[in-house]
C-alpha cells in the first residue's frame, strides 16, 4: 500500500464525496460489494490518518457535515406548502377559540349585536364600546337601546386589542391561503386542478410529501384522513369508509349519498394520476381533467336514483348517529394508526 492516491484531507470536500457516494449507490446498489476493504485499516496503512482516534475524529467531522448539508437540502417546494397548510389548520383552530371568547366577552356589553367570527372582531376593533357606533351605522339603533352593561375604558382598550389580534389572524389566514393557491399552481399543477389547491395541499401534508402521495395507490388516497373508520373496518364488521378528506371536494360533498362512493373512487384515481404526473413531469396535462369529468358524468347518469335500502342496510354516509352500531367487542377502536 505504498502508492495510494489520497483524497484531500479537507472535511468539507470529504463530506461532499460522502453524499455523492450515498446518492450514486442508491441508483446502483449492485456496485457496492459485500466484501469490502476495511476503511479504517486502509486509512491507517496509507497514512491518511496516523492514529485510530484520528480516524474517528475525522469520520465524525465528515459525517456531521454530510448530514447537515443533507438536512439543509430537504426544504423542498412541497415541504413549504405542507408547512403552510398545517399552519392554516393551526390558525383555524385557534381563531375559532378566540372568536368564541370574544363573542362571550363582548356579549356582556352589546348582546343584541348579532355578529360572530371575523365580522364581530372587525366591529369591536373598529368601534370598541357600543357608544362609539356612528349614527349612520346599521347597528346604531340597537346600540343605543342595548341592555348591555357599560363598558369601562380599561376594558374597552383590552377588548379592542384582543379583537385586533383576531383580525390579524384572519388576515394571516388569507395571506397563507393565497400562498398555497399560487404555489400549488406551480409545484403541483395537475393535483391543483383535479383536487383543488387546498385539498391537494392537505393530501400532500397527510401523505408526508408529493413523492409519497404519488407512490400511494389510489385506494389509499380515497381514504386518507379516515384512518379511524378504516381500522374499525379492518378489525370488525364496520363498513369500509368511502372517502377521507377528499370528501371536501365539491364533487363529492355536493353529490347525493348514493353516488358518493363511486365518485370518490373515480376522483381518487385521477388524484393519484395527477400527483404522479406532477412529481415525475411537472407539466399540466389537461387530459386528466377531461377524463375525470367524463367519468363523473357517466357515474351521475348511470345512478340517477337512490338504490332501495335493504332492511339491515349498513349505515351510509358519515352516520354520526349510528356510530355505536358496531359490535361492542372492540377493546380498542381507534386511537391507533
Amino acid at each position: 500500500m505504498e502508492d495510494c492516491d489520497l483524497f484531500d484531507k479537507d472535511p468539507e470536500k470529504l463530506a461532499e464525496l460522502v453524499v455523492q457516494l450515498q446518492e450514486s449507490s442508491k441508483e446502483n446498489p449492485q456496485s457496492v460489494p459485500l466484501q469490502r476493504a476495511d476503511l479504517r485499516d486502509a486509512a491507517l496503512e496509507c497514512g491518511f490518518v496516523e492514529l485510530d482516534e484520528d480516524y474517528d475524529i475525522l469520520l465524525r467531522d465528515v459525517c456531521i457535515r454530510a448530514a447537515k448539508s443533507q438536512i439543509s437540502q430537504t426544504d423542498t417546494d412541497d415541504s413549504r406548502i405542507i408547512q403552510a397548510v398545517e399552519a392554516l389548520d393551526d390558525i383555524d383552530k385557534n381563531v375559532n377559540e378566540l372568536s368564541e371568547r370574544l363573542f362571550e366577552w363582548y356579549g356582556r356589553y352589546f348582546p343584541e349585536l348579532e355578529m360572530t367570527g371575523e365580522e364581530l372582531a372587525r366591529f369591536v376593533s373598529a368601534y370598541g364600546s357600543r357608544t362609539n357606533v356612528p349614527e349612520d351605522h346599521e347597528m346604531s339603533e340597537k346600540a343605543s337601546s342595548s341592555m348591555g352593561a357599560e363598558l369601562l375604558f380599561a376594558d374597552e382598550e383590552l377588548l379592542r386589542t384582543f379583537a385586533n389580534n383576531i383580525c390579524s389572524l384572519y388576515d394571516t389566514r388569507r395571506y397563507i391561503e393565497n400562498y398555497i393557491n399560487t404555489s400549488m399552481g406551480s409545484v403541483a399543477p395537475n393535483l391543483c386542478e383535479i383536487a383543488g389547491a387546498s385539498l391537494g395541499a392537505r393530501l400532500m401534508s397527510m401523505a408526508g410529501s408529493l413523492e409519497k402521495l404519488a407512490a400511494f395507490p389510489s385506494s389509499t388516497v380515497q381514504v386518507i384522513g379516515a384512518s379511524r373508520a378504516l381500522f374499525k373496518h379492518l378489525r370488525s364488521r364496520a363498513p369500509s369508509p368511502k372517502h377521507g378528506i377528499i370528501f371536501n371536494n365539491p364533487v363529492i360533498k355536493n353529490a347525493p349519498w348514493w353516488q358518493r362512493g363511486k365518485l370518490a373512487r373515480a376522483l381518487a384515481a385521477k388524484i393519484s394520476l395527477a400527483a404522479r404526473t406532477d412529481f415525475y413531469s411537472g407539466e399540466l396535462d389537461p387530459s386528466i381533467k377531461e377524463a375525470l369529468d367524463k367519468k363523473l358524468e357517466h357515474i351521475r347518469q348511470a345512478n340517477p336514483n337512490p338504490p332501495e335500502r335493504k332492511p339491515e342496510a349498513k349505515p351510509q354516509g358519515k352516520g354520526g348517529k349510528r356510530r355505536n352500531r358496531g359490535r361492542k367487542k372492540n377493546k380498542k377502536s381507534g386511537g391507533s394508526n
Partner: protein
Amino acid sequence: MPVRELSSGIYELDIDDRKMLATRNMIPGMSVYGERLITEDDTEYRQWDPSRSKLGAMVLKNFDIPLKSDSIVLYLGAASGTTVSHVSDILTDGLVYAVEFSPRTMRDLIQLCDQRPNIIPILADANKPQSYAHIVEKADVIFQDVAQPNQAEIAAINSKYFLEEHGHLMLSIKSRSIDTVASPKKIFKEEVRKLESGFDIEFEVLERKELEPFHEDHLGLVAKMFVDDEE
C-alpha cells in the same frame, strides 16, 4: 446510595428505596432530553427511562446485553437520540454509527452528535445498507429499532454487510408496524422464524422476551449470526 452495575456501563441506583436505571454521563452537567442527573461518589449518572427506550426495557427484562465499553455499534433507527445517548455513555472507548431516515429527527440527533465524540450520524434508509457502506465498518453489535413492516429483512441485510462474524444482533420488533390487526404473538413467531431460516443468512436466537409493561406489543430479541464452522 447503593450503585449496582447490571451490565457493562449500565447501572441500577437505589434512591429512596426506588430502583432507577442509569448510565454514567459522558458529558457531566448535560441532560439530553430532560432526564434526571444524579451525582454519587463524584460520578454523575443519567436516569434512563425504560418506557422511552426499548434497550432500557431490555435491560430491565434481564436480557444479556452484549454492549461493552469498546464495542462498535451500528444503531438503526436512532430517532432523536434518546437511547443513542445512553449507548454513547456505555461505549466509553467505542463508537456508535447512528442511522436515521427522517431529516426532521436527524436535526435533533445532530445536536447530540455535536456534543458527543463517539456518535457518527448517518442520514440514510436502513433498507439500503449499500448507501452507507462507505462509512460504516464491521460492528460488534447491531441494534435495530425501526418501525417498518420488513424489520426482519432490514436486520438480515444489515447484518450481512456489517455484523462481525461473532457479533450480536439486538432487535426490537413492533408488531403494530407489521400488521395492525393480527395478533402480536403470531407476528413475533413469524418474525423469529424468518430470522432463523428466512434469509440467505441465518440467526441463532439467544433470547426473546416481550417488552411489557414498558412497551406494548413489542418483542425484544438478541441473536447471533449463525456461522458454518465446517468451511
